[in-house]
């Protein structure tokens, strides 16, 4: 009989595994439990697509800002009091036009500009989106409700490094002259990722 045979044990429920690892990290310092609460609050209350929507509305109404945003995204968003984590060293803003649709993905994990777009929804992290959107972009977009005319060129951006992307959707013509706050209200998370037009 092989005495080295491992004892087969049931995998602990995920909540118990989380509690175990949290107890390990709490031993690293007295502030850990509080910091975990704070980070949870920030992730749910501050990293929201409304941040990206503000950036877009500002770009629609202020041509100078639009220019600065396209030239250096990180510097421009700081004008609005917004920020990105230090390791996201570069923000590239992708301008949609009548004939160009930009789409963001991350095929290897699920990277996003989460301080501007919010932490990604399930579908962005799912294998189906990660596997298919680079190869079957037009089909995937159509399945998601965006049926693009053939004259629109699709540009897919795979987030393989710590450069982050934000799609700048086209302003719908009927919203010309609207105030910035009202414009920000119509900008959706999907349009910032590029799987929807407004």
């Amino acid at each position: 009989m092989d005495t080295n045979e491992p004892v087969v044990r049931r995998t602990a429920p995920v909540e118990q595994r989380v509690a175990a690892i949290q107890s390990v990290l709490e031993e690293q310092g007295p502030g850990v439990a509080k910091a975990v609460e704070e980070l949870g609050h920030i992730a749910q209350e501050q990293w929201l697509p409304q941040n990206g929507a503000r950036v877009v509305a500002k770009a629609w109404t202020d041509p100078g800002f639009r220019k600065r945003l396209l030239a250096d995204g990180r510097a421009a968003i700081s004008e609005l009091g917004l920020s990105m984590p230090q390791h996201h060293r570069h923000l590239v803003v992708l301008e949609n036009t009548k004939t160009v649709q930009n789409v963001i993905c991350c095929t290897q994990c699920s990277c996003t500009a989460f301080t501007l777009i919010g932490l990604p929804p399930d579908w962005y992290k799912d294998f189906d989106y990660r596997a298919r959107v680079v190869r079957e972009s037009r089909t995937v977009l159509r399945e998601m409700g965006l049926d693009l005319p053939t004259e629109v060129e699709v540009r897919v951006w795979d987030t393989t490094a710590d450069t982050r992307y934000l799609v700048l959707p086209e302003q719908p013509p009927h919203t010309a002259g609207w105030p910035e706050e009202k414009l920000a209200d119509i900008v959706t998370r999907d349009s910032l990722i590029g799987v929807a037009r407004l």
Partner: protein
Amino acid sequence: MDGIHDLGGRQGFGRVRHAPGATPFHEAWEVRVNSLYALAVRLGVFNMDEYRHAIERMDPRHYLAASYYERSLTGLATLCVEKGLVTREELERRARGAFPLSARSAPGRSNMPARERFRPGDRVRVRLDYVPGHVRMPAYIRGKTGTVVSESPAYPFPDAHAHGVESQDEPTYDVRFRSEELWPNSADPALVHVGVFQSYLERAT
């Protein structure tokens, strides 16, 4: 590594479960896992490249069956054990059951010694590198030719940074590929832009 995580272009997957109002979190533990890994990075327990690689090293069967935040938890726990914060036995005692962790890491590598500076418009080829450790070159661009669009600021080199190997920071190039060249006769027409580290590229002749 040519791991299960490298999904770009894989076939057999289905319709995207798209819902416009989907929330990023569904359970309280998911929020906690997200905070815990972020905190571990902040405390200097590990860096983002080590974290990504720890998830990539999961058993492929576990990777495919686990939810996003369970993968995150597994990467976090693997690194806490590897960095000596806790033993696996102690972790399993506290979890009151088995705690599946990722497989061991292969060695990392440093930057390519001779790296070229490229300019927008340059034609470049992605080197035919088969890297056992962490690498941020999706397999679908390996050996493929594209056009440089721009250069990023310098970043830590992931192939080294995930393994504690000395290296220089280097830029990535935004390289534009045609989907029809990545998957001949087997892709929707599109331009695919990838941030490619300088060490992965050579000039196309």
